[in-house]
């Protein structure tokens, strides 16, 4: 009996103690788990806060960026990359790509899977940013091209994305029917053979058109774009590691339209244009002189960015190629500004209209786009 009572008591003690012990363990475990969760959340929040700050995320890019467990960055590019129709989203994504590159090895993957449309100008800027990443970090962002939309694969292949970045070519793709592309070109700052390079570019552009174009106007435009980069684009930028320019061109046979695009990642036209009048100085000081107005001012012949050197003369050559054709558009995106000049000839003569626009996000340098209709 004693044994039994004892046993029962013993059992009872053991039973209560077990439950208490189990409960204590569970509470301990729950506390630890909550503590870990809270710490994890704090870590996650810290990570997210760091990401938001380091990449300067905004409403256009917040959902496109995440990190791996190893704290490396994954960027999803959006459905539509086009400066004309979707400027803020497009420029914001290129901006985070630039900032991620500055963090060196933190960028892990750049995902193209969502892209359904990319304009030639956006494709050139994208290629230049990935090219910069390759040069700064010394690696290659290897693309998983099988997951890309076929049209995007085809377009980037034809534009020379894979050649420029020395990536393996995708499998057999049927060519685009109506458009011929000049594959992306890259040029270095202060190349002693800049004149020969401009001539070669002119010839290659003529080849894709398949006939003669107004060659000296095209040479002028290209040579002044290259000179502009050499003299101004990287002039006050000690922290820019890659000092180059990129070019692409395309010709649509059905519409007989030629498009030439030139991009540099420099400090931008607005940054190199000084205020030459007191009211401009005051406007600048109070941030009331928008970038688009500065680009327009730089286009006026005789405006100088260095005392005694008349920059406007060079920028005028960019206009002339667009003006020498029946229909021509010159678009200059520089930092946050856009200056556009549209030329259309009718019976009474040329009708020239200009458009200015300012954005929230910088294009990260200067993007010049000529679009002309050949006669």
């Amino acid at each position: 009996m004693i044994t039994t009572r004892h046993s029962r008591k013993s059992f009872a003690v053991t039973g209560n103690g077990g439950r208490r012990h189990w409960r204590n363990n569970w509470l301990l475990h729950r506390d630890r788990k909550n503590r870990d969760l809270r710490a994890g959340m704090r870590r996650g929040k810290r990570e997210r806060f760091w990401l938001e700050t380091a990449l300067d995320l905004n409403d256009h890019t917040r959902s496109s960026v995440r990190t791996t467990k190893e704290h490396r960055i994954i960027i999803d590019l959006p459905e539509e990359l086009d400066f004309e129709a979707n400027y803020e989203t497009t420029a914001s994504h290129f901006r985070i790509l630039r900032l991620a590159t500055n963090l060196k090895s933190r960028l892990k993957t750049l995902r193209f899977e969502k892209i359904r449309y990319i304009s030639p100008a956006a494709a050139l800027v994208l290629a230049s940013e990935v090219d910069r990443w390759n040069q700064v970090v010394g690696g290659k962002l290897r693309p998983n091209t099988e997951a890309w939309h076929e049209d995007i694969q085809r377009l980037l292949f034809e534009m020379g994305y894979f050649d420029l970045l020395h990536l393996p070519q995708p499998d057999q793709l049927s060519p685009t029917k109506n458009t011929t592309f000049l594959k992306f070109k890259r040029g270095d700052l202060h190349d002693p053979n800049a004149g020969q390079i401009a001539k070669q570019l002119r010839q290659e552009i003529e080849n894709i058109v398949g006939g003669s174009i107004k060659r000296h106007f095209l040479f002028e435009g290209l040579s002044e774009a290259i000179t502009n980069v050499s003299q101004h684009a990287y002039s006050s930028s000690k922290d820019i590691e890659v000092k180059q320019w990129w070019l692409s061109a395309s010709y649509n046979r059905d519409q007989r339209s030629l498009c030439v695009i030139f991009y540099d990642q420099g400090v931008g036209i607005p940054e190199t244009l000084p205020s030459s009048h007191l009211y401009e100085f005051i406007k600048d000081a109070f941030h009331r002189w928008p970038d688009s107005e500065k680009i327009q001012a730089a286009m006026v012949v005789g405006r100088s960015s260095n005392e005694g050197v008349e920059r406007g003369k060079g920028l005028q050559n960019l206009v002339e190629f667009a003006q020498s054709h029946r229909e021509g558009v010159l678009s200059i995106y520089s930092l946050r500004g856009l200056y556009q000049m549209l030329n259309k000839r009718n019976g009474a003569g040329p009708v020239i209209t200009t458009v200015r626009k300012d954005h929230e996000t910088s294009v990260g340098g200067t993007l010049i786009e000529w679009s002309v209709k050949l006669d």
Partner: protein
Amino acid sequence: MKLIKIAVDYSDTPLGRYPADGNFNGQRFREEFLVPALKAEDKTVVDIDDVEGYGSSFLDEAFGGLVREGHFSSKDLKQKLQIQCQNSDYSIYANLIWKYINEARAKKKSA
């Protein structure tokens, strides 16, 4: 009289303002070709045909620079310099050269 044919004597792809812009820039053409010829001869003829084209930076530095750098006045150049072209497409460059010469002002020399 001295004849300088840019496409033959200098380059068919002149480009840029300064040596940093490329080998065949406007400053070099001015200092190595134009100034010696204009100083040595009563008349210098510059043939501008047969090049790819001229950017304004090149023309302004080469020709406008003659006045800016104090080598000659625009009045002197009207007597000593002749711009020649057969190709009508290039007459626009001849006009630009004279425009840049006329607009240029000699830099003030520091004491």
